[in-house]
């Protein structure tokens, strides 16, 4: 019967698609699913650019001053020297752009742009976002910003080179690439705000009849809370960026003290009287919550995936929701822990240390609840589940390494070392990106209408998981050894020379890690066209998106939806099946159970004959 319904709807969907022009459907689309796909493909494109930059960085650290193999000679002379080795100038641009791209053009667009857009309307039973046009604008600002940021390449002095944190005065006396970076980030922030407002409105107003807030899946909760953080934090970033732009471009002095001695720029027009630390406060007031923008949706996705493939209700659903709210709230008052060594009053260090230690608590709650979800479950280890399981374990490492930095005296030593680099990658790659892999595979059948290749999915997971740990775990050791971040050549320092073999090991692992991502792209692209056709509900999941056809047409649902229960009724004794969708009414449930019993009875009768 399901099959009949879905073919009918397929015909309908086809009709819809033909009634729109190509441009309306594929480019300036207002359909949340198309916008989600646009976010996805653009972000994956940037993932490869950011990844390539990371590999150039790694090459230089492992083999300082040696030519980049194969392509070194082909790169422009502003990037490499005559032999094809990375120059110090390009190196600082690389590390700046790697951080900026990965955070603002990969992780946030994938988690918030892609999953937020795709999952919210489908999971709450809405036909689209509250403001479809706004949604389209929100997407198109993103590639525009990407182009502006990358166009620094054509400017004298190259791309921005003051680090993704862009601390002034360095960023305020920098080249045109830095100005473009500021403009681009401003636009991306604007895109985030538009998206955030849209998500909040949609979730508050457009839930299917019967769906209470506490009937929403964790993904929706997480994106909802994330959207609130975005709308609170991003305007602060925007104002800080405006000030930095003026310092950079109009010689104002928001962040500039008087009498700076700078060789590259005439400072006589700069009056002075500004405070470099002001930028850091404003920047981290946004960028610390941004860390939670980049992890909360991942936590939501992982919660859904873990429950679905453990065939068990999410352990402590309400505790999980409150933990997210607690993380969001505390996340806004811990920004100073990035500034323990910045010259800020050490008394503030004490207060920020206490709030930072406390924020570890809700993260611990989430971890224990994930464990509880798996306890006495019946786990199925398909690709999304593997990635979700890896997420939890990697997030534990990332969380624990955070305690070292939260403790101010220990931070004195490890601040600005590779320990931090290891930590952030365990959170953003081991955490966010594994959650993204989980979500991409989990929703792939719904998004494309086809199944991905399970063997390739698993292959990608295992190579990624192993090479990820080989790449980033040793960075903690480098940090303990004192290796500073963002240095072009560690062999300049005697105390870092013993670490060179480890740097080579990391680089080789990173190359494997980078190239393994081609498996993912091949799997996604190939399966998109040639994969096995997906059923409506291939994972036997409860949430509403699985009630829509695969892929859902414009307008999403072909049935009237009413929500009767929470999203995690797996293995409920009320149902003979091990899942119980949110939309099944008590009467339907009874019918289903009856039919199922009859079928079982028939099978039993049939067996002796066979």
């Amino acid at each position: 019967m399901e099959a009949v319904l879905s073919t009918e709807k397929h015909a309908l969907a086809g009709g819809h698609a033909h009634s729109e022009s190509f441009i309306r459907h594929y480019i300036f689309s207002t359909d949340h699913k198309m916008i989600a796909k646009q976010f996805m493909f653009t972000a994956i494109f940037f993932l490869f650019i950011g990844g390539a930059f990371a590999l150039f960085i790694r090459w230089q650290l492992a083999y300082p001053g040696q030519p980049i193999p194969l392509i070194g000679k082909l790169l422009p002379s502003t990037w490499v020297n005559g032999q094809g080795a990375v120059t110090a100038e390009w190196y600082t641009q690389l590390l700046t752009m790697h951080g900026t791209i990965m955070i603002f053009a990969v992780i946030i667009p994938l988690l918030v742009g892609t999953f937020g857009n795709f999952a919210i309307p489908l999971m709450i039973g809405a036909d689209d976002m509250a403001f479809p046009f706004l949604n389209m604008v929100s997407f198109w600002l993103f590639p525009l910003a990407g182009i502006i940021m990358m166009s620094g390449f054509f400017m004298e002095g190259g791309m921005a080179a003051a680090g993704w944190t862009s601390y002034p005065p360095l960023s305020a006396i920098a080249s045109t690439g830095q100005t473009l970076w500021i403009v681009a980030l401003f636009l991306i922030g604007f895109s985030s705000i538009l998206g955030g407002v849209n998500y909040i409105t949609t979730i508050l107003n457009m839930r299917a009849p019967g769906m209470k807030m506490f009937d929403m899946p964790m993904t929706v909760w997480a994106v909802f809370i994330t959207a609130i953080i975005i709308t609170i934090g991003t305007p602060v970033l925007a104002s800080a960026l405006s000030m930095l732009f003026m310092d950079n471009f109009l010689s104002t002095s928001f962040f500039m003290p008087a009498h700076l001695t700078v060789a590259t720029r005439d400072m006589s027009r700069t009056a002075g009287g500004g405070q470099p630390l002001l930028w850091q406060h404003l920047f981290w007031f946004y960028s610390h919550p941004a860390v939670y923008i980049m992890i909360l949706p991942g936590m939501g996705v992982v919660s859904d995936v873990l429950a679905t493939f453990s065939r068990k209700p999410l352990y402590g659903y309400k505790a999980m929701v409150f933990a997210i709210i607690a993380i969001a709230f505390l996340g806004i008052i811990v920004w100073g822990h990035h500034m323990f060594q910045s010259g800020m009053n050490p008394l503030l260090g004490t207060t920020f240390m206490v709030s930072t230690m406390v924020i570890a608590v809700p993260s611990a709650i989430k971890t224990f609840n994930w464990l509880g979800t798996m306890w006495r479950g019946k786990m199925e280890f398909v690709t999304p589940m593997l990635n979700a399981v890896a997420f939890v374990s990697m997030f534990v490492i990332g969380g624990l390494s955070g305690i070292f930095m939260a403790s101010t005296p220990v931070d004195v030593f490890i601040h600005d070392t590779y320990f931090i680099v290891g930590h952030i990658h365990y959170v953003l790659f081991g955490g966010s990106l594994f959650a993204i892999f989980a979500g991409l595979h989990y929703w792939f059948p719904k998004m494309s209408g086809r199944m991905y290749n399970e063997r390739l999915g698993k292959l990608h997971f295992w190579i990624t998981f192993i090479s990820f740990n080989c790449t980033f775990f040793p960075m903690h050791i480098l940090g303990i050894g004192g290796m500073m971040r963002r240095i072009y050549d560690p062999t300049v320092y005697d105390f870092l020379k013993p670490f060179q073999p480890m740097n080579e090991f990391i680089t080789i692992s990173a190359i494997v890690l980078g190239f393994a991502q081609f498996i993912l792209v091949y799997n996604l692209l190939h399966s998109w066209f040639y994969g096995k056709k997906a059923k409506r509900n291939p994972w036997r999941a409860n949430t509403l998106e699985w009630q829509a056809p695969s892929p859902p047409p414009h307008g999403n649902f072909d049935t009237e939806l009413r929500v009767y229960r929470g999203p995690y009724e797996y293995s409920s004794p009320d149902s003979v099946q091990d899942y119980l969708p949110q939309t099944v009414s008590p009467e339907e449930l009874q019918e289903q159970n009856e039919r199922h019993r009859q079928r079982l009875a028939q099978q039993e009768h049939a067996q002796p004959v066979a």
Partner: protein
Amino acid sequence: MLDWLPENVSVFGEGVDHLFTLIYYISVAIFILVNVIYVAFIIRYRRKRKGDRAYYYHGNNLLEFSWTALPFVLFLFLAFYSDGIWESIKYSDKTPNPDLVVEVMGQTYMWHFRYPGSDGIFGRREARFMGTTNPFGIDPDDPNGKDDYTTINNLTIPVNKTVLVHLSSMDVIHSFFLPNMRVKQDAVPGQWVDVWFNSVKTGKYEIACAELCGSGHYLMRAVLEVKSQSAFDGWLDEQYGGLLAALNAPSAVPATAPAAQDQSAPAASPTH
């Protein structure tokens, strides 16, 4: 893993390293605990047959409460334990009386160090005098400043003496990083920050910049020489003699462009 830490030669570094070790063992314990349970679950609770049913269970409030309260207590304990050490390192009212005061100025990509000279008094400095030839902005009219002397990329200190550093920068933010002293402090232009340390062992150590300050960031390396008191006094006299000679010469030669000077060699540059 902690064996990789650079040798600690500072007095408070021991407390820092103890705390580091404590957090390390707590983390390893939590990591093992969580992951043993995790792996056990992964092995035990996988779906083996079709029709297997999971345990229908939504959670337990007592458990939720306990795994909220226990980490809370643990992390608050860590915060307060850490704070004791933090205060003793960074709070200005807990800084011991210094035996030697040195001013440190970061400049892309080098470190300037300034000693008060034989009178023990620094000459007055003002930001408006700051420039590549006068990194500290010493007032040329102040007689106390005449015998102040500066070095580039070399900080020499006596062993077992408390050294107080006034730290600033003349262009962008740098970070004064002494791995063996467990010292790191950003040098912020327009702002003076105090850092202190006390080395218990003589020897040559490295000073690095830990905050991105431009493409030459990695070259911003200086040498920390910890000498016995007598050797330090000898070094001081030597530097001071050279400075006096330069002052008494008919026309003091302006300091050469600092960038041209050797990275590690101690260099006295007269200020004017």
